Every structure is written in C-alpha cells, then in structure tokens.
C-alpha cells in the first residue's frame, strides 16, 4: 500500500504527460502544478489538449507517458482513491434531463454511498448552496443554461471533494448564465476547494484564476499569474472602426500618436487596434484627436486582449497561414461578447 500523501502535496501535479489518439499526440510533455486552495486556469483554443488533460487527470483516460498525481494520489495506479477526492464538471451538463434537480443530486449522492437519508439531506444542502432550492419538481430539461450548469457544479460537490475539475464551464451560456456560474465557482474557492478550470476565454481565466497555464498543441506554452501574463502579452486595447476606408491611414497616425503604441489595421473591417497603457486617458485622447481631425468614427471600443492576440504574442506571428495557430487565429475562436464586456465606450 502506498503511503498517505503529505498534507502539503499540491492539488494537481503532472509531469511530462503524453496521450495520443491513434498516432496523433493530443498531449505531449504536459506539465502542470495546481497549488492547494487555488484556482488554476488552463487557457487555450479548441483542440489545444485542455479536455484531454482533464480526462487524464480525472482517470477517464490513461496517459501514455509521464505521471500525474491528484490530491496526492497517482491517477494511473490509484484511480479509485483519486475518484474519491475529485469532482468533474464536464463540457456538457452531465445531469439527467428527465429527473428534477433534487432527484439528480439524490441519485449522485446514493452513488457516492451516502445512503438514502443522507443523500436527501445533502441534495437539499447543495440546492440551497447553489441557489436552486425553488426549482421544485421541475425536470432539468426545463432549466436555463445557467441553472443546469449550477446543478452540474452541485453534482460535482457531493462529497465536498478537495479538487474540482471544470471543463469549459461557461461555454454556450448567455452572459447572465455565465455570471451565475462565475459566482458559484468563487463560492467553491471560498470553501477551500482547489479548482482546475479550462476555458477558451482570457477574460474568464483572468476573473477566476490565481494562475493561468496557456496551452497550445498539447503542452503549456506560458504559465503565470494573470498579471504576469498580461504584462507579457500587453495590456488593454482600443479598437476604432471607421465609416470610410480611405480615412484609415490618417486615422491610424492619429491613434498612434494618442496611444503612444504602434497600431494594427484591418482594412477589410476598417478597424484600427492599438495597445493602451492608461485606458480611459488614452481613449479620451484618441477620440479627441479623431474628432479634431474630422475623421468619421463608426465605433470605439476599449477591451482586453483577445485569445487570438494572446497567442500571437506568445507564439509569435507564425510564417504562412498553414500553421495551426495561424489557422485558429483567423478562424476566431473567442466569442465577441466574451471579450468586450470589460468596458465599452461608444460615441
């Protein structure tokens, strides 16, 4: 029998994890360390390997290379012990659509061997904790997306596991549902739970995570606190959209002067983007300069960097359009409303 893990062991520790499907490596040389009681974000586009990493760490997939411990136990050799200590909230809300929320939680409680009475008590506690008490006997099929995800979170918390995995918990939710899930996740952390969260949205990782690992093509390409990463990838940006394409060059010069940063222009969208150091002040200067220059502006937006821009900064502009990163960047994986919610200034 393996010795009990040290009390200070990290929540998740992965070294050199490799996992292939047929002959394609979905993960290769994947390293990760999640400290106890922290939220760690795995940030990356579709197909980067985030879900494969979660499936390996939750014992659903065996790694072909490397080792990983969760809550101090080896995922390959001590799967049963790991499963006692984790909660998994997958990409699709894995709850029964026909049963009510309460019946779902009682079902999962019994499958955690709480016994009928304790399972019912636990279900009531969790419904209360996740704000679902008043859903009554309604089948889950009638819930909103946010309610379903909160129920999904609750189902992952039956035993108050020390480590919880959230695989893209807000994908497909409207802004209101996303806010509901975010506040529920913050509640978990307040209770001392360690969370590994995957997301395609920089803003989500920024809001929730203590540390972020950026994942691309199956391994971590950057790691740090949100502040560290943002200082590496540049800060907020201002987007100016013009009515007239011919005014682009003149306007670009004005924006460049106002922000003190070089601009990127996208002529087909009549858009100028520039980094800003001092948010509102730069915005004001740019708007005033454009106004005084007589440039007709369609839209001005102050926003955080998009995932595309994060990847451009971390991987560099790759040569050719055939590289996976370039294809993804032009494919545009980040939903606009997810990037632009920080602050919008319209003229």
């Amino acid at each position, binding site marked *: 029998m393996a010795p009990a893990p040290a009390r200070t062991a990290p929540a998740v520790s992965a070294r050199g994890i490799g996992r292939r499907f047929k002959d394609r490596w979905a993960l290769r040389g994947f390293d990760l360390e999640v400290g106890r009681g922290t939220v760690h974000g795995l940030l990356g586009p579709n197909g980067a390997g985030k879900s494969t990493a979660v499936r390996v760490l939750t014992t659903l997939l065996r790694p072909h290379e490397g080792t990983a411990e969760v809550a101090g136990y080896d995922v390959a050799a001590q799967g049963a012990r790991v499963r006692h200590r984790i909660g998994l909230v997958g990409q699709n809300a894995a709850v029964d659509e026909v049963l009510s929320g309460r019946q779902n939680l009682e079902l999962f409680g019994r499958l955690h061997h709480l016994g009928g009475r304790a399972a019912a008590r636990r279900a009531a506690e969790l419904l*209360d904790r996740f704000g679902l008490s008043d859903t009554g006997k309604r089948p889950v099929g009638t819930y909103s997306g946010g309610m379903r995800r909160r129920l999904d979170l609750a189902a992952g918390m039956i035993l108050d596991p020390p480590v919880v995995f959230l695989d893209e918990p807000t994908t497909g939710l409207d802004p209101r549902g996303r806010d509901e899930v975010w506040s529920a996740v913050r509640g978990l952390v307040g209770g001392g739970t360690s969370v590994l969260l995957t997301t395609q949205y920089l803003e989500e990782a920024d809001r929730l995570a203590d540390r972020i690992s950026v994942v691309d093509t199956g391994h971590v390409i950057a790691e740090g606190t949100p502040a560290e990463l943002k200082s590496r990838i540049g800060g907020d940006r201002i987007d100016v959209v013009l009515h007239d394409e011919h005014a682009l060059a003149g306007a670009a010069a004005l924006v460049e002067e106002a922000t003190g940063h070089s601009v990127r222009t996208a002529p087909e969208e009549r858009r100028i983007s520039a980094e800003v150091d001092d948010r509102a002040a730069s915005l004001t200067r740019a708007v005033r300069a454009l106004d005084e220059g007589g440039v007709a502006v369609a839209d001005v937006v102050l926003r955080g960097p998009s995932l595309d821009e994060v990847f451009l900064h971390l991987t560099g502009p790759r040569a050719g359009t055939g590289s996976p990163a370039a294809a993804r960047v032009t494919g545009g994986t980040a939903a606009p409303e997810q990037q632009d919610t920080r602050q919008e200034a319209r003229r």
Partner: protein
Amino acid sequence: MNRTAPRPAAPAVPAPAPPSGPLHRLAWAAADGWTVARRDVTHWLRQPWEPLFGLLFPVLMVLMFVYLLGGAMSVPGGGDYTEYLMPGMFAMVMVFGLGETVTAVAADSARGVTDRFRSMPMSASAVVVGRCLADMLRSAAALVVLIGFGSLVGWQWHGSAGAALAGFGLLLLLRFALVWIGVYVGLVMRGQGGIAVIQTLEFPIGFLSNAFVATATMPVWLGAVADWNPMSSTVAAVRGLFGNPAAAGDGWVAQNALLMAVVWPLLLVAVFAPLCVHRYRNLDG
C-alpha cells in the same frame, strides 16, 4: 444576483470508507446497480407515454398479423396460426428491447453522464448492471402485457405451468443476451448512429427467423439462415414448452431448439460481456 451566490461551504460530508472486502464490494456493486436502474424507473413514472407506446407497438403487430395477414397464413403440419404466432411475437418484443438499450446507453455517453459516472467512486460494473436490470424489468413488463393480450385473441399454453414458466425464462434469457449486444453497440457508436443501425436491423433480424412463418416455406438457403438465427431457437423451444404448433425444420439446429435456446444466449453473453467491460474501461481509446 444575491440568490445565486453560494453560501459558505457546508460542513464537509464524511466520505464513506471504501469497501473493505470482496463481500462489501459486491454489496456496493449491487446497491449501485439498483440505484442506476431506479433512475430508469423514475423516468417511466415521470414520462409514462414513451414506455406505454412501446407496449402498444407489439399489440398492434399482433392485431395486424392475426386479423390482417393471419387469414392467408397456414402452418405447415396444421395448427392455429395465432397459437403459432404468439411465441414469435414474444421473442420479437425481446428483440425490440435492443433499440431501447442502445438508445439509453448512447444518450448517456453523448451527454457526458457516462463520463461523470466513470469519474465517481462508484462500482465500475454498476452502469452496465443497472442498465441490465432496468431493461429486463421493462421487457418483462412488455411480456406480461402481451401474454394478457395474446390470451384475448385466442392464444394459450397447453403444457404444465412449469413448462410455461421455463418458456418465459428462455425469452428473458434471450433478452438478457441482447442487453449486452445493445450496451456494446451503444458504447461503440455513440450518439444517434447506433440507434439508427439497430432500428434498421431489428426488423430484418426479427423477420429472418421462424417467428412469423415456418422456415420450410422459404428458399432452402434462406431457411437455413433463418434456422441459425438465435431468435429461431428460442421461438421453437418456447413453442415446444407451450404446446403450440411448432412446424420445426429438419436441420440439426431446428431439431435441437431447446438446447440451442440456452446455448445461443450464453454464447452471446460470453462474447459481448467482456467486450462491454473492456470498452467501458477504455472509452476513447
């Protein structure tokens, strides 16, 4: 937004100790299997139309074959067509259950429920055992309904009650074997694909047998194929046990129907149960 903000964590739930011995583990497996099966029972109670229509279908089939087609049917060697038909219909109901198994397994896999089960500290066999329990319950209920309806249209058994019970046992044994095929197909072909395949195959599999007409009336090669259909062995054996007209063929497999009605299902389970376990452990891979 206050309503949705979680309160401070509730006091930690004492995690039940993992099972200590083989007996304890077996008890957990049984309890987990029953919990999973109860989920299906709750489905039936909350949405009774779907299982009710499932029961209606074989009833309509009986009406069709007895009154619409029955007049044109004659049983080789003589005998009442309704009495000949009903054992075939009983077996047909068992085959139709295959679609229900595949649908349930594929839906859980596609929605991530199977993954959640696999990431939980529950008995690994519980998902399949629960599926099996629920499907057997449902098919047994369908069988009871059809026995009642068969009696209304003039079918009865002529042997002893013991022989009749043995006949129903053989039908459920066939269903038991089909559960494992259904679970395997559902796990391999996630989503709608598996369901379409099974629903397309159910009818040819059911009709390419002795369930509706004697295999002697088919072209020789086709009759041989129908005789070797595992379903034919069950139907022929059940006809014998009920004392219904059998019109059995001359081939070895038709002459040893009772033996084969036991051997076929056990063989299918022996092949598909390990495949299911392997597949469940290595989903994705």
